[in-house]
């Protein structure tokens, strides 16, 4: 088998905490990276950092990822910059406050547009590119929250469930075509998104990132990180709904 360390990488949502850490790990190995994010000065800082750490070259594309009309152009530009694409990491998302969303349909739908619709739009487009290439890895950052709806974060969870299911389908579709699909399901990660919330088994993004890099190299299909979540979520999924509703803690 050829070297499995991807060297030409697209990162959508490059300023997210997990994406930054993954990008650093690849930069050290001399990768060429195409970084997409919304905030120009932040993504420029990330790109500078990746260059200093050893990235061969880094290109930046600033865009509001909700605007689906730019997606095609992003895909196009990244192909021009990278030539063959080894790996696409789709990492953007928002963690809205569920209590606010409970009484706000528009905000609920808006969060779904970011966390599900725009992710699926990128996944779909890049799946087609990789399929045409007959190679590459597509990585989606989903969440354990997508494994079961909970009162505390079901809007976020529902979007992640959509992502998980979409990636699972892509995986089946593309396995025979030389394309690898990895769905990442982190537990709570200590990121700016979760600041102020302290949850059990919270890990820093760096830990999640090294799990992701290892999973890409091993062509894992579904990654729970940290690994205990695989067992926890298996249990959580197995609880019948009539009991689950009584577990108010969830």
């Amino acid at each position, binding site marked *: 088998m050829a070297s499995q360390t991807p060297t030409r990488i697209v990162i959508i949502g490059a300023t997210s905490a997990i994406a930054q850490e993954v990008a650093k790990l690849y930069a050290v190995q001399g990768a060429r990276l195409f970084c997409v994010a919304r905030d120009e000065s932040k993504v420029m800082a990330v790109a*500078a950092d990746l260059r200093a750490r050893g990235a061969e070259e880094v290109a930046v594309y600033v865009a509001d990822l909700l605007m689906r009309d730019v997606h095609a152009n992003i895909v196009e530009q990244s192909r021009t910059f990278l030539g063959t694409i080894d790996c696409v990491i789709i990492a953007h998302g928002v963690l809205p406050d569920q209590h606010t969303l409970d009484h706000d349909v528009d905000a609920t739908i808006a969060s779904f547009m970011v966390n599900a619709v725009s992710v699926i739009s990128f996944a779909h487009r890049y799946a087609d590119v990789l399929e045409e290439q007959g190679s590459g890895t597509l990585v989606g950052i989903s969440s354990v929250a997508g494994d079961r709806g909970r009162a505390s974060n079901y809007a976020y969870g529902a979007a992640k469930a959509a992502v998980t299911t979409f990636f699972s389908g892509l995986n089946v579709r593309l396995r025979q075509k030389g394309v690898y699909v990895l769905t990442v399901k982190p537990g709570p990660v200590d990121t700016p998104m979760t600041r102020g919330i302290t949850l059990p088994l919270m890990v820093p993004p760096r830990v999640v990132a090294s799990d992701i890099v290892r999973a890409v190299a091993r062509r894992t299909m579904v990654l729970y990180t940290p690994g205990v979540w695989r067992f926890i979520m298996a249990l959580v999924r197995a609880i019948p709904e009539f009991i689950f509703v009584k577990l108010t803690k969830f």
Partner: protein
Amino acid sequence: MAKRYESWGRFPDAQPSTVVDLAWTQDLELPSLSSPILAYGKGRSYGDVCLNSDGTLVAMEQCARILDFDRENGVVTAEAGISIQDLLRVIVPHGWFVPVTPGTKYVTLGGAVANDVHGKNHHRVGTFGCHVRALTLHRTDGTVYVCTPSQHADVFAATIGGMGLTGIITTVTVALLPIASRMIDEESIKARSLREVIELTMASDHDWDYTVSWIDVLASGSSLGKGLVLRGNFSTVSDGTLQATWNEPLLRIPFQGPAWLLSKPTIALFNTVWYGKQFGRMHRRHIDLEPFFYPLDAVERWNILYGSRGMLQYQCVVPLDGGEDAMRRILSTMQAGGISSFLAVLKMFGAARSPGIMSFPRPGLTLTLDMPIGGKRMFDALDRCDEIVHEMGGRIYPAKDARVNGAMFRAMYADELAQFRPLIDPGMSSTFWRRVSEE
């Protein structure tokens, strides 16, 4: 469970009322935070300079991006929360090292500037601040300064060694040291007395870039101050080691030690074994930079071995003239006060003058001791040590302090404080500053 913000000595306990865990320097909005405000790096200061009881702490550790690395000329600009550890992983493979490093690599650039840290090469190159080319500083009134030795030079001078009181540093530009190898040629020489330690140090400073001595504080009489003089130079042979991988800490201390663990008898035993382990008078080694510069980093969180009471570190500097006698008096005063210390370090500071107004180092001898927190007898003995230091025209190091009497501190830094006070940002403060700055 909320994260606790501690200093390395874990004394005093001074929790902030608000913590801003800053992810992006772009998001820093100082005017919207409530005063008093203080930046927090990695909490490797021993005392309370990094603490802000009931105030706002801005935790900088996530702002750790390298914004520019000039590999040809060895100049790096990075966000202030990056650790020396992280920076070394990037620069060493390209043949560069930090110009000055403290005894741990777990410090941030911001912390290195704010305490104007020194290393074993002070006699050669001065403090960290001597190598800083530029700083970005955010003030609580919303202004942002880019300062250099010539631009906003007064703010620059106040910020180096300014203990975080002039604002929040968001980026630091520093000139690096070229190296050909990761390896150090080290010599360690047994010295039978304080006099010998000092003589050997003076003799070494000419040919050795890095010198430091370890002293057995419990030895008394004619062997008072006996110890090991360590000296080293980076190997100049391009031996291909620059690409070597880094070690993770060997051990992490999982929980607090009981009180007896680091008490007088165990410390005496440690010191005897340590001094005795070297049989010959001189010992040569060719060792990696990690064990040379950062022997303590091999054990993560070793500070909690001191137990729940925590520990203190005492560091002072006195002029060379009369310095030996002063060191002797300080060591005897500590012994009389029942203070036992593991790590007593003696070093000679050179003449290089830092741009920092409040910068601690002055030419002369500097002594550093760790000690478990004791009772009133210990604190009284340290007060007496302060008097000896002050009488000699010396001073103590705020980065290590948790107990100095305010009037004593103000006397030690009288001229400097007069220059420094007008440049402080009135919205910034620390537990240390409130303790020492006012009547």
